[in-house]
Structures are given as structure tokens and as C-alpha cells.
């Protein structure tokens, strides 16, 4: 379980870092700012989960955050509003 948590966290961090370094060109400046704000909040939430990796539900919550990051970073169209 600990290895799975580590993999999910690495995946989340990689997607966020990749987005921060090179956001999709189709995204407006405003859309980019909203996405970055959301992603940084998620990163904080994920680190918060790591305070007790073995607590019930942690693995599932990490998966939920991973899905959310995939959704945000996978968006190529213009985003006028936060997710």
C-alpha cells in the first residue's frame, strides 16, 4: 500500500510540475492562472494526506486527487472560470 501511495503521489507531482513548466498553448492566461491555483491547492491537500499514509481512505483519496489533476492538466480548451 505504501508503494502504491508513493506511485500516486509521484504521478500527481509529475503532472503538476509538467503543467507548471509547460502549460497547454491553447489555454488563455486567465485559464492558466485558475488551473495553477487549483493545482497548487491540490498539491497541498496531497501533502496533507501524507501525514498519515496508513489512515483509512488515504489511498482512495489520493486516487481521487490524481483523477482531478488529470482532468485539470488534460484540459486544452480555454477556461474562463475555475473548475
Amino acid at each position, binding site marked *: 500500500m505504501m508503494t502504491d501511495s*508513493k506511485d500516486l*503521489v*509521484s504521478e500527481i*507531482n509529475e503532472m503538476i510540475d509538467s503543467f507548471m513548466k509547460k502549460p497547454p498553448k491553447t489555454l488563455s492566461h486567465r485559464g492558466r492562472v485558475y488551473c495553477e491555483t*487549483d493545482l*497548487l*491547492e*491540490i498539491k*497541498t*491537500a496531497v*501533502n*496533507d*494526506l*501524507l*501525514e*498519515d499514509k*496508513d*489512515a*483509512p*481512505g488515504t489511498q*482512495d*483519496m489520493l486516487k*481521487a*486527487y490524481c*483523477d*482531478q489533476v488529470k482532468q485539470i492538466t488534460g484540459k486544452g480548451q480555454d477556461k474562463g472560470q*475555475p*473548475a
Partner: protein
Amino acid sequence: MRIDYKKLNKEVRMEKTNGIVKFFMKNGKKFELDNYESLDNEERLDLLAETGETIDPGYRVKFKKLEDRKPEDNRIELESDFTLQEVMESAKGIPITEKALEIFYSNRIAHTCRDAQKKMLSDLLDNLKDTYKDFNSLEYEFTPKELNQTTQTLHRYFIAEKTKNINAKKIAKAQLGRKLIGDEEIEELRKRGFDVLSKGYIDCMSIKDAAIAESIELLKDDETQSFGLSRQKNKKTGKIEDFFVIDVQGYGQMSVHIYDPELISSLSEHEYTYPIYQVDNILLFERTSKYQESFYRLGNDEEVVKKLKEIGPNADTHEVAVKGMLTKQQMDIIYGKTNDEEDGR
């Protein structure tokens, strides 16, 4: 008239918790990382001092309780007008010390929020126990471990709500449901400010992590101050825990938990090689005890190192060394890791 001390204690406790919620409702935005990082180092320390004094004025009593466990000469006494602002003043202009105090005191503020969350939940559970005492299937008896875990799950629920993650929120809610915490209880806690405390906690932990990253940048080329990652086994749980430790010259050993995998990875070449002695610290500051002063009166560092080496490394000698501003190299002599002859002394 008999005083119901249990009721009185509960009222005092609730008042303290409400005070912390009110503080963060008014000042919470200052702790959001973007806003916090727009402050200069002095302003950050002032904010942390003001916050510590407001939300946890009882730190003086807690500090005294810990000191009273030590032999008399080893105790540090605080004056009646002692303040955290004094502690911060003495650090201003010394970059590493400023960062160490940021890390330490932001961590303490976060933990004050966590303690307040636990008290809030505990008070609610007391009410529920009373309300449903005639129903066997509605038993609100929590062990200390269950109380800790449920506090954390509630915290995660509110954080999931803040990040607008519906599934994470559902997962947390499912966990809470198993402990009979449903919509009504969640809304009652929200009304009391549990979510405000969650935000306060998570913002202060972000500040701590950012300060750790900045301190690593400052320290990595400093050959005189010991710092780094320390992996320790928790004696109660048996789990391995990661700590970030700095021997803050003039102030003492500072250690905090570290969870961010990127920060942990950035410390891969910096292992903290001494034991961690300071775990339940209330204060990180320059004050010294009579016992510690007796070493500094020896006149020079060589004499201090010699005397500490004779006594042998332990919590007291380590603290004497760090507060006496001995270097990493001198510390290694005390720990027998190098010879003073090898060191050219």
C-alpha cells in the same frame, strides 16, 4: 453553590477554541502562501509572534511545566513580560535563524489549530453522548486514537471540499459515517469553525514547507551548521518518520516532521547524523540556564569542547554546544567522530 468544574472547564475550553477560530476568520488570508510570501522576513516573524501570543498564550505555562521536570540549574525561567516578539527581534537580520524560527513557529501554530479541532470534536461528542444516551445503537464513545483519526478525517473532508474534489469528499464522508458523524454533525462543526481551523492548519504547514525549502538553499553551502534529514522509528507506533533538523546556532536543536516527498528528496545528500533530543519543544529561543552558562564562562570554545567531550554526548551537552554556537566540526569532536588532534587543534 457548588461549582461544576467539568462544565466550567468545558466553557473555558470552548472559549479558547472560539478565540482561535475568530483569529483565523479575521487574519486567515495573511497565511495564504502568496500573501505570506509577499511579506519580508521581519514582517513574517512579526505575524507568527502575534499569532502565537494570541492563539496560544498558555505556552508560558506549558513551557514552565516542561522546565519543572529538569534539575533546578537546568531550568530556564521566563519573566512575566516575556513575549514571542522578543524572540523574533533577536533573530532579525540573521537569515538562517529567521528561517528556523519561521519553520518552528508556523509548525506550532498549525498544531495549535489541530488541538483546537480535536477539542471542538470532543465537545460535540460529549453533547451527542448526552443527547443519545438512551439509544444503544448511537454510541459516541471514542478512544483517544479514534478521536485523533476522526479529527483528521473531518479535516480531510473540509480540505476536499475546498479543493472541489467531490470523490475525495465522498470518501472522507464514508469514513465519518462509520463513526456516526453525518451531515448534521458536519454542519454543526462547520458552524463552530472547524473548516476555518482546517485552512489555518494547512496554510501554516505550507508556510513551514516553503521555509524548509528556503533554509535548505541557505544551509547547503554552510559548512558550520548541522542540518538535514533524520529518519526515526516512532516508539509508540513503530512507524518510520522523517524529520527536518537544524542545529540553530545560539538557539538550540530544532526538529519538525517532514512529509513532502520533493523536500525529502532534496535532502538526500544531507543527513542529520546526531540524535534528535528536542521533540516536545514549546519555545526555540536564545535563553540559557545556569547549567549552560557555567560552560560559557570557561572562556573559549576549546575548553567548552573539552569539557563536553569529557561528559559525553547527551541532550544537555548537545544543547550547550548548539546554544554556545559551536560548529559542526566541534560537535563531531564531542561525539567522538573526529579527534581534536586530527582537526589540528
